[in-house]
């Protein structure tokens, strides 16, 4: 018994000694791997889709080669990335697809995150069929005719219904509600990750099989597997306010960058650079295609793009 008390006391006092006795601020905890060996480090969050990897690859390359920073990247989904930004575990999120709740909480109320300006890319989510299928059956591109094709789009996973393939659970989606509210004879099958979804789309395309998928632009895969959007009931401001009752298409979203508030203020050149970072959909797709399809490492892809687009990125550094 005495032994246990002693060890408990020892443990607690060791913890106190180790950490000091003051308050520990959980908003100021950088990654333990940051700023090692005296180098200035920027920590960027990478989301699971390739477009986000392209942003980070180019930002990382320029930060390292032009501004002399060390860059750490951490793979996190969007919503947890907001949380990590607020805690200072990562410094920037380069591509956000719209999270009004988080914006309210962290930017407006807690002021731990600031908007870093637009990325220059506009995002749009929708339902897509492969173009080879749309050419054979032009009327498939209207949602009202989808039920006609349900039997052709059936898979083992979708039971007796047609399959609407969704991607990662981290992506913004109303598809379950849409299928229900538009009374479609379809089953939403979640691929579980973008990687699984891309792999499956490529396999379908190789055999010229029809499929219907949740997909989004900008996306490099369009270059490899041309896809045509299926028209859903038009988007009107606020028609997606109630997630249960959504029965309209997805909006077009200008993608935003967000920075940790401290970093934005004290991050020096790196913060200024990340705020200026702004490119086009074509730029992003070019880098994404190199990474995901030609299997270049993100660094090599970024180098290739940087070498051929100096006029674009010079502006991010000088201002």
């Amino acid at each position, binding site marked *: 018994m005495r032994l246990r008390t002693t060890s408990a006391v020892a443990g607690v006092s060791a913890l106190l000694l180790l*950490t000091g006795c003051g308050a520990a601020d959980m908003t100021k905890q950088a990654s333990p791997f940051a700023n090692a060996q005296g180098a200035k480090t920027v920590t960027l969050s990478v989301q699971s*889709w390739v477009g986000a990897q392209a942003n980070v690859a180019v930002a990382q390359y320029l930060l390292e080669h032009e501004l002399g920073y060390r860059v750490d990247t951490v793979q996190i989904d969007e919503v*947890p990335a907001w949380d990590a930004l607020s805690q200072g575990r990562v410094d920037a999120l380069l591509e956000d697809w719209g999270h009004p709740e988080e914006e309210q909480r962290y930017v407006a109320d807690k002021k731990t995150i600031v908007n870093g300006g637009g990325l220059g890319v506009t995002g749009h989510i929708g339902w897509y069929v492969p173009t080879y299928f749309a050419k054979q059956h032009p009327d498939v591109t209207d949602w009202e005719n989808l039920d006609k094709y349900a039997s052709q789009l059936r898979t083992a996973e979708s039971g007796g219904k047609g399959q609407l393939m969704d991607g990662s659970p981290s992506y913004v989606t109303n598809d379950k509600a849409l299928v229900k509210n538009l009374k479609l004879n379809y089953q939403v099958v979640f691929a579980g990750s973008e990687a699984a979804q891309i792999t499956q789309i490529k396999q379908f395309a190789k055999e010229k099989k029809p499929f219907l998928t949740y997909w989004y632009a900008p996306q490099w895969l369009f270059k490899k597997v041309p896809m045509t959007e299926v028209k859903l009931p038009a988007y009107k401001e606020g028609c997606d306010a109630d997630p249960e009752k959504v029965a309209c298409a997805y909006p077009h979203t200008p993608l935003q960058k967000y920075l940790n508030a401290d970093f934005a203020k004290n991050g020096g050149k790196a913060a200024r650079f990340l705020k200026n970072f702004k490119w086009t959909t074509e730029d992003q797709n070019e880098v994404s295609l190199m990474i995901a399809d030609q299997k270049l490492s993100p660094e090599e892809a970024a180098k290739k793009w940087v070498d051929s687009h100096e006029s674009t990125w010079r502006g991010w550094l000088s201002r």
Partner: protein
Amino acid sequence: MATITAPTPRTLPAILRNRAVAKLTLLALAAAILVPLANARWAGGAWPDALTVDVSDPLTKTSDWIIDNRDSHPLFLYFFGHVSNAVVVSVRAVYLLLLAAGWAGVTAFGALIAWRVAGVRLALGTAAAFLTCGLLGMWIPTMQTLALMVVAVLASVVVGALLGLAAGLSPRTDRALRPVLDTMQVLPAFAYLLPVVLVFGIGVPAAVLATVVYAAPPMARLTALGLRGADKEVLEAVESLGTTARQRLLTARIPLARKELLLGLNQTIMMALSMAVIASVIGGGGLGDRVYQALASVDVGAALAAGIPIVLIAVVLDRVTGAAGEQRSGDGRKTLWAYGAVAALVIALAARFAGRADWPDAWTVAIAEPVNRAVDWMTAHLYSGVPVIGGTADWAAHFTTWVLDPVRDGLQWLPWWSVLLIVAALAWLIGTWRTALTAVLAMAAIGVLGVWDSSLDTLSQVLAAVAVTLVLGFATGIAAARSDRVERLLRPVLDVFQTMPQFVYLIPVVALFGVGRAPAVAAAVVYALPAVVRITAQGLRQVDPAALESSNSLGATTWQQLRQVQLPLARPALLLALNQGVVLVLAVVIIGGLVGGGALGYDVVFGLAQGDLATGLVAGAAIVCLGLMLDRVTQPTERRAKKGA
């Protein structure tokens, strides 16, 4: 264990049968009274709504409260904040130390330790492993993972040893702790990432703490085992010398338990390594993060480049700590130690002054491209259109329609009370009434949480995967037990499959089997197979040679010998293989949520990705209950019986 049951192979089944009949009759009686009552009130197949509790509201409120108060509430400022800081500071310290040593220094010190503990061969292996990590271009991520591992393993060992010490010295603590440790060990790691993230946020502290929760139980268990198992006579002899309790502990009991302690360390390291990869989902960094990022860009080659160092570290650490358990190193060779240390220091400094502390970029070998080409070729040729047998995509579709769908629909069609009855009957037949009660309560908890249907979906995947695993595993295990050559060939393959992070083969599995439940099952089979093969082979090999001899002299054929002597005698081992298979399969079927497995795994991923505590935590709890139920239903009586003693 096989030798203990060997003398009574005839009588045991008879007793068991009588007991089984009695148990089933009792259960049937209870069912006859309870089922009509339950059915009258809550008819229908699925779990009745009236018996569910909606926990999403309080959970969402809790999660909001934590996020809103994390920067200001004293609980976080004065407790969690310090814990988190301590983790960051220590991981950082180790990381800086590793960087300061440089690649040459780390390799030299690693080899030195391996040499002193385990001999020259392992020292060379260790050095080769470190250099390979560098060659693959993974030096920095490897060091990050090592830093994380060192801190996590140290913390796990301290926590585990303290718990084990308490359990080893006091029988009452032992009894209280056992079910807790049991439960912790059957939990799939994926299930409890979310609560840790919520409190500590994404990043290293959460990753380290999740690892400690996962890796401490084996240390605790083995420490307790070692302390209890100490030779009574030695202890009495020491006591007769008039020592105090503390002296006895320090001079006799702990040294006597050395072997178990080192085995515990070994187990803890292995568990921590496997967790290091899963923790990449919550921003743990290092090699796991590289694997995870490669997964996102569908790059199997890059995933493999980061996966190989993990396998290498695992194999090296396993062999070195294993060898440390085998032999006792004397103290008389201190000078050798000193020479070695000086040599390592010189190497480190030399590399440093040569300006080569960081791994040179030019010294890397790109394996990603050829690997990707191989994977592309494989999927292009196997996915469909193989003559006669069809492509893997067809198999997957057939497996889904002919096996997974009927099993799932059948389970979901069964009235809820009959599922509970089946669970009770199975658990009671194999264990005691307590086992049965735990299993039934766990299953009922799933219903109460309101995720009955998706849990049965997951269960159907587990059952299908376990069936496939057992067929393949027993067949391979029997082959390995009967031929030394097969076993030698199999060993490295099993090592790789057991330590390779599951994320590496998720993408090839999708490329072969398409999106859905089939690839989740396939990945689970790959992961669980090595353990089943190993336990089966070992169980068969340990069958009393005398029994084999005598059956041989009676003129039994090889097949008869296997069926009538070896398999019955190895029954405990086979049951253990079943149990391990079930637990491991569950762990990966959950990760299958990332490739379209759906059900509970998807809900956990969803919870993590969207920060949705209500969905994620309920699914996590359901997984835990499912794991508990499956463990109890498949846990051999022998293990149970020992626990009562």
